């Protein structure tokens, strides 16, 4: 008989994140390494984990330099955690943070480790800029050259233009060439999501996040960094009138997505502490909530006609079925606001009988949710969205909400590039 223990409940003990900053502002000069280390150290400080050897740290970044081969491990080595703590990088576009948490949680559930940290970081201010492809090939050829003559011959192929045309990372799908905003604009059109409903969601996001800061709810989740004490994308005084004035950002003529109802490029990092109940008890740390399960789905947005950001719509019913839950069995819904339209498409798809039958293979649609339970402490539209850091932000915030509520259940839904989506259930 195998001695592997039965799956254990995975406790979420808390999180730490640095305030998120719009790209090229407060963190313009910082690297992923700097920010991940700051968030990690803050978590170590908060839970007094100095010198502790943890089971593992899993984190990642979407925009990553080639020098960051061991981003997470290097960050661990820069903190006061025991340097005997193993670490690895995860990368699943905007799903990175939540996927990392699911990975760590699964190991805890299986008894492979007792405690771990999951997280993510991203910077669009310090994005990896690749050298021009022709220049790169010439350099590689020169490197392979045996004689000086061969090396010089290879380098003679370098043209000044190559130096002036670096390749910037693009927020675009490799297979369609469309930016994510353009994809989401297509979704908004298909699902007939009005500009007003998107703007309303965006304004609510700002007001909710501002209230969360004002009440002190985020005090133990956010750590001051580089002069910031709040996310600098937050506009507490945002109004429908103000955001209604903005021009469409992706489709000038007939579009509804704007700079206000889409997330801006953002820099930031977040981490979450997960553990077995025994570990939590032994360390005298209260359990905020449990990470019950996670589910990842992908959709064919290239050849099929599914929207790029619709994967969570598929992931949630699969997960609910396994758990025997309905969409209405939740006290909180945390749907990542990559774009207001993405959230609204998701909700509409779950309500739509035809789509549910044909695409989700459901006889009865999941139905609607109580919108007063949606992103009640703000979402990515207000906080900003440093791709891999969003999962950790949401997970820690939701766990605290459930704890504050004296228990309850929350749903997390995060869409990601490549037609993927990561979702999870948190409860206590």
């Amino acid at each position: 008989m195998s001695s592997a223990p039965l799956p254990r409940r995975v406790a979420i003990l808390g999180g730490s994140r640095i305030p998120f900053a719009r790209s090229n502002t407060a963190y313009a000069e910082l690297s992923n390494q700097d920010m991940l280390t700051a968030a990690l150290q803050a978590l170590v400080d908060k839970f007094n984990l100095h010198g502790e050897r943890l089971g593992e740290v899993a984190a990642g970044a979407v925009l990553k330099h080639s020098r960051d081969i061991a981003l997470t491990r290097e960050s661990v080595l820069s903190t006061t955690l025991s340097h005997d703590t193993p670490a690895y990088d995860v990368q699943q576009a905007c799903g990175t943070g939540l996927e990392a948490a699911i990975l760590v949680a699964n190991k805890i559930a299986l008894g492979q480790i007792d405690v771990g940290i999951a997280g993510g970081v991203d910077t669009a201010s310090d994005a990896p800029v690749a050298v021009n492809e022709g220049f790169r090939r010439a350099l590689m050829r020169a490197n392979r050259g045996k004689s000086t003559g061969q090396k010089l011959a290879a380098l003679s192929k370098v043209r000044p233009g190559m130096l002036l045309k670096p390749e910037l990372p693009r927020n675009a799908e490799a297979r369609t060439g469309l930016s994510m905003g353009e994809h989401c604009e297509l979704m908004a059109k298909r699902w007939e999501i009005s500009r007003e409903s998107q703007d309303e969601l965006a304004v609510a996001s700002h007001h909710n996040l501002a209230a969360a800061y004002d009440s002190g709810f985020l005090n133990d989740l956010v750590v001051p960094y580089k002069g910031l004490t709040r996310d600098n994308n937050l506009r507490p005084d945002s109004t429908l009138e103000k955001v209604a004035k903005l021009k469409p950002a992706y489709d000038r003529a007939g579009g509804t997505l704007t700079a206000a109802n889409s997330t801006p490029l953002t820099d930031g990092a977040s981490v979450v502490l997960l553990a077995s109940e025994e570990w939590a008890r032994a360390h005298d740390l209260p359990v905020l909530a449990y990470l019950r399960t996670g589910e990842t789905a992908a959709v064919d947005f290239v050849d099929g006609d599914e929207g790029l950001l619709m994967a969570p719509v598929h992931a949630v019913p699969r997960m609910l079925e396994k758990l025997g839950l309905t969409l209405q069995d939740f006290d909180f819904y945390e749907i990542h606001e990559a774009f207001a339209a993405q959230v609204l498409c998701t909700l509409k798809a779950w309500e739509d009988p035809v789509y549910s039958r044909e695409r989700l293979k459901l006889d009865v649609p999941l139905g609607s949710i109580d919108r007063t339970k949606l992103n009640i402490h703000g979402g990515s539209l207000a906080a900003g969205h440093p791709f891999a850091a969003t999962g950790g932000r949401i997970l820690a915030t939701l766990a605290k909400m459930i704890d504050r509520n004296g228990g309850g259940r929350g749903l997390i839904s995060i869409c990601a590039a490549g037609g993927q989506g990561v979702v999870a259930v948190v409860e206590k």
Partner: protein
Amino acid sequence: MASQDQYLSFSSSGFGKWLTGTLGLPQPIPLVRYRPGKPELRGPVVVGAAPGSKIEDFLASALRAMGAVTLYHPDSADWRLAAGRHEVMTGRFVPEDSGRTGALLFDATAIADTEGLKALYAFFHDTIRSLATNGRIVVIGTAPEDADSIEAAAIQRGLEGFTRSLGKEVRRAVAVQLVWLKPGGEASLDSTLRFFLSGRSAYVSGQTVRVGVPVTGVVDRPDPARSQAGRTVLITGASRGIGLSIAETFARDGAQVVLLDIPPAASELAKHAERLGGAALALDITSPDAQDAIAADAAGRGGYDVVVHNAGITRDKTIAKMSASQWDSVLDVNFAAPLHITEKLLVAKAIRPNGRVVFVSSLSGIAGNLGQSNYALSKAALIGAVGKLAPLAATEGVTVNAVAPGFIETQMTAAIPFAIREAGRRMNSMSQGGLPVDVAETIAWFAHPGSGGINGAVVRVCGQSLLGA
């Protein structure tokens, strides 16, 4: 009133700043004062503590109530855990990296020997450059008389020299204070921290105040914007100047105000009372029936919660040239009347529990002043009255304190000849005069329902004047 100081406006203008800088003239920085609805803090509060402190939970709780964001000096890692217990936002302070900070708060209560002072040095050495203009510094120590050893008592007394020196070297409109904690005062630091860390104390610097067991026990925190709600406050000399500002400040904080001034000022008084939703009492405090009239007014209101003795006059002459009536009137108005009214009200139990008596003394009463032998005597006598009255009043649940204003921009000081006036304005760490509201805010702090642990104090509102220091 600020516009009276044209040098301040000039020297903070672009050209004026250049010119005054080039000529080595004082460059006063406009003071940022408390405004309802505006953030009370200028930025994060950097917190540090000497090892062994037992008050960090009280500090964390007070800072949480203020909505403060904190940073902690790396040597004070215990703060991280205290902040966590009270849900105060906090992070490590990293020199040159944490951005501008709004205040520096150091807990020196546990320092008992020179070894312990190293933490004080390290904290300020590392953090002081981060402090923003108009920032605040507060050091909390243990009252020397309560220290456990001679060395500890001496060192705690030494903190006064330290904080006063900081006030003189940081300048940039930064105010620096020392709080001496007495046993049982920990739970009542709220109102004092809120005052010293905010723009309410813009013109108060270099002061030391003891906080002890509150006269009526620890009270619940009131709504900070309406801290005087439900309280009735008598202010003498309230038709103009500092007295009027005191009335406005108490009304702002939710108090029911009773404005008292001499009968010739009755119409002005009535106008202001109406504007502030309060009552007017036209009365000369030196008249024979004054004590009874005030006691009757108090009785009609179910007692006063706060009595502010602000009415005052000057009759300046050198002693040889001073007439007997100049001597007598100043002593009557400034000293005898306020003292006897207070005694009368206390005996009649017309000041309610958790009540306050505040005397408006003067820097002249501390430093003395040419031509003011009568005035300085009267104002110093008020300080003497505070000392004797405070323990007696405490048995009634009432505190007695005094403010000693330095140079405040009012009609009284506008009448001073230019050269003397200029010297009075600049000879302090803020290089400017204060405003009536600075005195008013200090009185409101004494009068705060949570300030019952401050009794028998004399606090100067003088921008850390060089006089009498």
